[in-house]
Structures are given as structure tokens and as C-alpha cells.
């Protein structure tokens, strides 16, 4: 075990643990956006930074390996400032309305004020952001704050991609790639503020390598990727989590034994998730378990 001092109190963590593990051991609520237990850390969002004694800059707790004797501050003025600004920069450029309760709690805690950057600029036209050239941009006159707002991409009946809500946490890319699915249908394209999640040449999903496993939906923290069924109900104003029940069951399609969580509202399955802590699937599924439930609801309506 390693001794690490977190906010003045010594905690013990196993060798190989991160500073985030140390913070959590002490029970410090540490914001994270791009971190997920089941994925390789990309340490891109920087909301989890802490002040490490002896380090010139702050360090990302989610990926920094704890060293014996590390002394970290999680609530110093520098830490609070960087976390606040990271959240402000995101909240002023991305639609966080469907982000998790955790995110909303952190936004409150760090007193995020997006008005400081001015009113939001007009959304981009459909697919315009996907064609932007690296190394070139049209600068505004500064009266409005640029955002990633753009029309939602609805190309099939499985799931929708609303990149106005994308914080570019790379989780979907990792879930689609070597951390889970090994399909590599999506990657980050472009550069800088114009970087975006994209298939090759921004082709529609059904023309890409996507196999509709939905694992990217499962890891997306902001609701940028959601089931079409959920999206439709939200559009109709009838999505109501209070009325939903969740039933845990085993996928009937094959012998792997994936656990499914069926979310049911008004007697209809509205989405399927998979428990993160499951030893076989770690939250991941395939198209059959994720989307193969539509037939259950075809109650002879034709």
C-alpha cells in the first residue's frame, strides 16, 4: 500500500492506484467527465485536476499514478478555478441539458457562469462543422460565444447523434475501438474547436463500419448519443423517467449470458442498458441485446 496525503489527511491506496482512487478513498467528490472505470484514461477533459505538491501545473487525478508520499490538494483556489473554468468553457459551448445529475451538481458547486462569455452564437448548418478545414476558421467579432450547436443527426431507427451535446470526451471512440467493440466505426476528425466525432468522410452510420452494438450510447455522458426510441419520446414530451421501471434479465439471443436492463415506460421498452459492473459485459452489448427488442412490442398492430 502507498500513503498519499489528500487535503491534509493520509490515505492508503494499493500500488498502481491513481490520485483519483486516493481522492475517492477519502470520500472526496471529484468531478470526472472523460474517465470511466472500463475505459483507458484519455485524460482530455481536465475537470478532475488536483494540485500535486512539486508539480508546476495541476495534474489530472484520473490518470496520474499515485506515488508514495504524494501530497495533493483537491479544493485549493487553483483547483477550484480550473474546474470552474473547464465546466464554464464546456457549458458555454455545449448543450449540457441531458448531462447526468453529477454534472449538474458540479456545475452548481463551482458556480458556473456562462454569461461571462456572452450570448451563444447561432448554430451551425447541418453537416457544416463536419466539413471544416483544419488550421482555418472564420472568427466572429466576439459579440457572441461560439458553440458546437448543430442540427441533430437522425439517419436510422436505432439511435440518434446530437453533437450539440458532445463534450468530446472520447468515450464513444474508445468503446467502439480497442476498449470494447473493436469495430472502429468512429474516430475524432478535424482539429481544435472544430474537432468532432465522425465516421470516415462523415458517412452515415448505416454506410459505415457501425454494427449498432450501442456501446457508444452506453458510455456517452451527455446524452449526445441516445436511442431513437428515447429521442422520439423526448420530442413528444412524453419521456418520463419517474414512470419508468427497470428490469434486469439475461439476453436470450446467445450463450454469452449478457445482462440486460430493460427500461419500460407505459408498458413499452424504451431503452436497453447493461450493468457496468457485470463481469462478462462491463456495460457492453451487441446489436441483438441492445436493439433486438422491437419485435416484443409488435403486438399485431399492423
Amino acid at each position: 500500500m502507498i500513503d498519499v496525503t489528500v487535503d491534509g489527511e493520509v490515505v492508503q491506496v494499493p500500488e498502481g492506484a491513481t490520485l483519483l482512487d486516493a481522492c475517492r478513498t477519502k470520500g472526496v467528490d471529484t468531478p470526472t467527465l472523460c474517465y470511466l472505470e472500463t475505459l483507458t484514461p484519455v485524460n482530455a477533459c481536465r475537470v478532475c485536476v488536483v494540485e500535486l505538491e512539486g508539480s508546476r501545473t495541476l495534474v489530472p487525478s484520473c490518470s496520474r499514478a499515485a506515488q508514495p508520499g504524494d501530497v495533493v490538494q483537491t479544493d485549493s483556489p487553483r483547483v477550484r478555478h480550473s474546474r470552474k473554468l473547464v465546466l464554464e468553457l464546456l457549458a458555454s459551448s455545449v448543450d449540457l441539458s441531458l448531462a447526468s445529475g453529477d454534472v449538474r451538481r458540479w456545475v452548481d458547486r463551482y458556480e458556473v457562469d456562462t454569461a461571462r462569455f456572452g450570448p451563444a452564437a447561432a448554430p451551425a448548418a447541418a453537416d457544416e462543422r463536419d466539413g471544416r478545414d483544419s488550421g482555418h476558421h472564420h472568427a466572429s467579432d466576439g459579440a457572441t460565444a461560439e458553440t458546437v450547436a448543430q442540427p441533430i443527426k437522425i439517419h436510422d431507427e436505432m439511435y440518434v447523434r446530437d453533437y450539440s451535446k458532445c463534450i468530446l470526451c472520447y468515450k464513444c471512440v474508445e468503446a467502439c475501438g480497442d476498449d470494447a467493440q473493436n469495430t472502429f466505426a468512429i474516430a475524432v476528425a478535424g482539429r481544435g474547436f472544430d474537432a468532432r466525432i465522425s465516421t470516415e468522410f462523415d458517412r452515415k452510420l448505416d454506410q459505415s463500419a457501425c454494427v449498432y452494438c450501442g456501446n457508444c450510447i452506453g458510455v456517452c455522458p451527455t446524452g449526445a448519443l441516445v436511442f431513437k426510441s428515447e429521442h422520439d419520446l423526448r420530442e413528444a414530451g412524453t419521456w418520463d423517467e419517474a414512470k419508468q421501471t427497470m428490469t434486469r434479465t439475461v439476453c436470450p439471443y446467445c450463450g454469452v449470458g449478457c445482462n440486460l436492463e430493460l427500461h419500460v415506460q407505459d408498458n413499452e421498452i424504451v431503452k436497453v442498458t447493461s450493468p457496468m459492473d457485470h463481469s462478462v459485459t462491463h456495460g457492453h452489448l451487441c446489436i441483438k441485446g441492445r436493439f433486438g427488442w422491437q419485435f416484443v412490442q409488435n403486438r399485431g398492430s399492423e
Partner: protein
Amino acid sequence: MDLKLLPAEASPEERAAVASVFDSSSEASNADRVAREGLNEAKARRHLLLPALHAVQKAVGWISQGALNEICCRLIVPPAEAYGVASFYAMFSTVARAPRVAHVCDDIACKLAGADAICATLERTIGPPGTSSADGQATWLRSPCLGLCERSPAALFQLAGSESADDDTIAPATIDEIEQILNGATVPAPAVGSTPQTSGTREPELRLLRRVGVADPTSLSAYRAAGGYDALARAVQMGPAQVIAEVSASELQGRGGAAFPTGRKWDAVAKTAETPRYVVCNADESEPGTFKDRVLMEEDPFATVESMTVAGFAVSAAHGYLYVRGEYPLATARLEGAIRQCRADGLLGADVMGKGFAFDIELRRGAGAYICGEETALFNSIEGFRGEPRNKPPFPVEKGLFGKPTVINNVETLANVLDIVLEGGAAFAGVGTEQSTGSKLFCVSGSVERPGLYEVAFGTTLGGLIDLAGGVRDGGGLATVLLGGAAGTFVSPEHLDTPLTFEGTRAIGASLGSGVVMAFDESADMRDIVLRIAAFFRDESCGQCVPCRVGTVRQEELLRRLARDGARPSPAAEADLLDELARVMRDASICGLGHTAANAVQSAVSMGVFEGTERE
């Protein structure tokens, strides 16, 4: 992994272009592939992605779906990832584009030299950047600094088609020349030199520039006649441990911007148990205002090859990678020539100089991304991934190129090693000051009489250097100096007596950075310059981390408000917000780009470039 490819076919030209990369893939990379056994075949080949994209871009002028398919098929790379890489770089187009492209520099030095007027004319005659000319054969784009500031304004031409000439640059550029080349004229050879100290009465003290203008840069025998390869011979006599001891004793600090002790790096790599190890030469020079490495590589390319070989010998690395900025066609050609001749003469290869050690160099061209000069982004770029910096630690000496221990040094840093080996570390340390040893190249540009690359011993003052360059042009008054590049600091004339050393510049809250000294006279529109710097960082952010990806956008927006008197609620409040942005970028960004993106901007704002924002 099943590769699902695009339903598109490559044209014969595209297929031939991709094939050429595999055929010409040199001994170095083939041998290296074997060295990296343990990686699966696909991963072992992925480092050819950037060369393949270059080949296609050159052959047909853009990366089509069919061409990307062909590349993905041969390299076993998923198309989405390859597209992510291709779309990262400014020199690749993923939409059809005219075969002749002028990249017109509108960055700081070129702005001072009338680049905006050139752009305005092109906008009138062709249309906004990216528009094709009437015949569909030409287009133009704005470009960040092309590393030709001493001869500004500058333009780079990307010329596609197997029949066409190689990419080339012109500086100083005129609108007439640009239009002629876009119409198919050939690119003229440069008429003016870049090193005022080597013309007329030659400065006798030159060390790094010693062979410039003396030895034919295209001839190995000329290089050897001028003392070339004496250092490697001496290094072999000394043995690796002694070479590292001399480099440590010289107290040489890196010239790429971070001023890290070179001996410490070499020692750390030499001491690791892991193999293979790599030597990487960082020749991506893209810091606005910087052109020193370009001049060294164009005028003394064999020195780069020899010094890399010394490094390889010292740390027992058999493979070197030389990553040259994509916008440096002449340096690339000269280095390619040098590598070829050295291989033919047994100065590179399986048995260097017949002394029983192997070393070879693979040259890689960047493709238009400042961030790829950051060492870990550079590794990713070579490996065929997006040029996104990695989180550190681990540092390159532990996990560098292909995850192996790596020495990475700047071109100028390596050039110093030759003298260190020949004269000994102690003698080298006798030049300059106690804390800044040796001589230093300075890229002097802007409003001076004789812009160019100057070599002086550390300790020369800022004012002394500007005097060496003939003082302010046309007898004008000096308004400010940009020290260290866009990532550096604006300093006021009151600091002219500051010694140009690591410690001297630190004492005034500045840094030497990459050796940029750009002078501005009182006629310069400083607001416009500051806005250009802010735009540069926004364009060049890799986009990976939030503080820099969004912070550079907010910084530019804020400055634009100040520039048009749209400050809200007041200029002083905007200056405070700018400080807040600077703090998060400096504290929480992943890499040096974000850490320094506010430096120059903040220094200008506190000097009162925008009314009402002055600070003590």
C-alpha cells in the same frame, strides 16, 4: 478487427502513389519493422500512414474516398481512424481541390511586410480562400508562419500531379509571382540569403553557421572537406559513455524551447534496459517567427545527419527518425540528398564507418500542424495517429517513439553536439555565460534593417542583437519586441539591455523560446498582430483538452471585443477574464501549447495595446 472498407475504388494514379510508399520504404524502416517484432503486422505498418497520405495528396491533390480505401486496405487501418488522421493536417484536403495551391502566409512578420494586401488581391481575383480559379486549376489559402520571416512576405506552393514540380516556396513573394505560379509558371530559386553574417566580411566567430556559404550543402565531399564527420570519428574513439559525459559537462540545454539539459536525456536513455531505443530529431519548426532550423537544414544538412548519428552511437540506438516540417520542401530535399549520400558512403547503415555499429535515419514529413513539434504529438504523428500530445509522465526517455526509450532533440541542439565532441564539454561550457553555455541562433525579423539568422554567444543583449541586424528600419522608433515566438512575450524597449540568456530573459518574465526576436516599430498595428497570435493558437490547438480547445476560442473572441471597443462590461473586466482564461490554460492543459497560448497576448494587453487594459 474486421476492416469494413468504403465502397469506393482508387484511381490508377492513386493506387500507384500508395504503392510507391511501400516500394520506396527504405532500408531503415524495413529493418526497424523487424526490430519492433512483437507488434502485430498491422501496427508495425501503421507508421506508413502519413507517407501514404502525402503520396496521394501529391499525386492527385486531395485524399479521395477511393484513395483512403486503398491506404486502409494496405495498412490495415480502419477508415474512420485514417480519416481522423488525414483531416487533422492542414496540408491534406479531404475534399476535391485544385491541383495548384498557394498557401499565403499572413502571420506576424508577413503582415508587417504587406501580406494582407496580397491576400486582398487574391480575394478579388480568385475569391475567398479555398475558391478555385476560373479554370479550376488553382486556389489559395491563408497560412500560418512559413518559417521564412527573414524574407517576408512568403508563400508555399503545393503542386499536385505526377508531372508537376515538387512543392516549393517563394520569399519575398509578390502578388505577380504568386499569380504566375498559380497559372503554371515554375517557381524561381531564392535570390537572397538568410544569414547576413556570412555575406560580405564574414563573421569569424561563427560556430553553428561555420559551413554556411562555405561548403556546398548538396555534397558530402564538400562537407567532409570542411571538417564534416571528424566529430563522429572522434566520438567513436571516445566511446558512448565518454560522449555522454562530454555532453553533460558542456551543460548544453535544448534549443527547441524547453531548455532541458541534453546530457540528462541522453544519460537516461543510455541507462534504460529496454531496446530498441530511438533518436528523433525534431525538425518540425513551426513556432511563428522561427526559421533557424530551416536554415541549418538547408545550408548544412549533413551536420544534422552526423549529429543524429553521434546521438545514436551514444545511446545505442540503431534507428533515427528525422521529422521535418511539411512546409519545408528545400530542407527536405537537402536532407534526403544527405541521407542518400551518407548511406552510399557507409556513414549510415548496418556498419557505420566500418566501426561495428548500426545507425540509419528515416525522414518523415509533417503535414501542416504546429502541435506536431510537441515531442509526444510528434511521436504519435510518426506512428500514424493524430498528432495529439500524450500525457506526461511517462516522459520520452522512458516511453517515447513506439513506446520505447527515445532521445528527442531539436536540430540546433544536435548541431552543438558536434563541437562538444570535438572540443570537449568543458571548452564548450566556456563559451556564453555560466548558466547558458555555447552560442545561440536568433531569428531576427520584423522592422529591422537586415532581418536574418544571427549567431551570437549567449550574453549578447537584446539591443546588441538588434544593432547587429542594422537597428530599426528606416530610422524608426522601436515600439516593442516579440521574444521567443507566439508562445513567448512582448517586451518593451526598456529591456534592450537584457542579456539574451535563459536566466536573463527569465529575470524579466520572458523566455528565449525558439530564439525569435521580432521587432516592431511605431507604425505596426499591434492590435492586429495580437489578434493574429490569438487566431494562431485557436487554429493550432489539437482539440484534445477543454482548457485549450475552448479557451483559445474564448481568448480570441475576447480580444476581438476589445479591438472593436465592444468590451463588456469594461476593458478592465475583460482583462480580468483574460487572466482567468490564461490561468486555466496554463494550469490544466495537457501540453505546452495550451500552457503558453496566453503568454504573448497577456503581455501585449498589459502593455496597453488595447485601451483601458494596462497593468503594472
